[in-house]
């Protein structure tokens, strides 16, 4: 048991370390201060690499991603605002570079679709439940014919 635990812990540690190593690109960029660095990294993580497509520009080793993150670092250090930097990126590479698309006419269905579906589902459920309950509340009505049949059945089983 103990051995198993030890193997598990070391595996977790190894994966953890590997993840940390892969997540740190080797860039020789000197930030003016640490706050800028943290902020620039955060911003760069929200931008998608246009070449590799499934990585953000910090993770990717492609030359374009390197250019783009250097550009982000420089612009953050130069005191540019986030919206200016995002504008710079989207004016060149399009909305595609944003992991989180902006809320606009084109993306309404993307942002509001799930909410609409949820509301629709809730509405259907609500109507369904109300109907069920309505049926249960009503006393059972039997026609004269039914009544007669019932009486006969009860007689037989006496």
């Amino acid at each position, binding site marked *: 048991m103990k051995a198993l635990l030890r193997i598990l812990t070391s595996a977790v540690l190894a994966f953890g370390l590997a993840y940390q190593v892969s997540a740190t690109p080797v860039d020789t960029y000197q930030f003016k201060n640490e706050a800028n660095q943290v902020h620039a990294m955060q911003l760069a993580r929200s931008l998608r690499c*246009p070449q590799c*497509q499934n990585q953000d520009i910090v993770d990717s080793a492609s*030359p*374009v991603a390197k250019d783009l993150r250097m550009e982000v670092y420089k612009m953050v250090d130069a005191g540019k605002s986030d919206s200016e930097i995002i504008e710079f990126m989207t004016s*060149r*590479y*399009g909305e595609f570079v944003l992991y989180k698309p902006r809320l606009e006419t084109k993306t309404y269905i993307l942002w509001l679709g799930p909410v609409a579906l949820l509301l629709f589902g809730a509405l259907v459920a609500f109507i369904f439940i109300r109907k069920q309950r309505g049926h249960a509340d009503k006393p059972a009505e039997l026609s004269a014919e039914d009544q007669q049949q019932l009486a006969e059945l009860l007689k037989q089983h006496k």
Partner: protein
Amino acid sequence: MKKLILFIPLVLFLVMGIFLYRGLYLNPQQLDSALEGKPVPEFRLSKLEDAKVMISNHDLKGQVYIMNVWATWCPSCKYEHPYLLQLAQQKLVPIYGINYRDQRGMAVQELTRQGDPYSLNIFDPDGKLGLDLGVYGAPESFIVDHNGIIRFRYAGPIDMRVWNETIYPLVKQLQQEAATAQQGNATEGTAS
């Protein structure tokens, strides 16, 4: 009426199904260029063959042209090269080369060995112009109209099919636009 309501989930499912099915056949590598409809970005870079000669975007204006982003390290550019040479011989439209993130010596050597299809070659060693153009790989080709507006971006090598089906029809259309614009200007000139 009630029966119809029961079909709503099926309809929703079909609509989503069609949507997703179409998505299967989209090419994720073919991104829309954000620059279509915008002017060629400002640049000032040296000529590939001569570091002392500077070229800016004002040197390119006035006619329909193709900008082709290429590099010696790019295998698809090598594949595309012979076809570009053929096109250059036909003199249908000027092709300007943008030598992207490359070494000057190697690029010049490549052109002397394989032939040079470019009317002019712009040297962009650190990809600055490439970045402004939104280039994410080579080769990429931009079709620019007579006002210096980028009208179309094609990512990938140009071959006979791409040329005949996509690029040449647009080039012809733009050249016609340029010709009518020029005629318009000429008649305006004589009238005033």
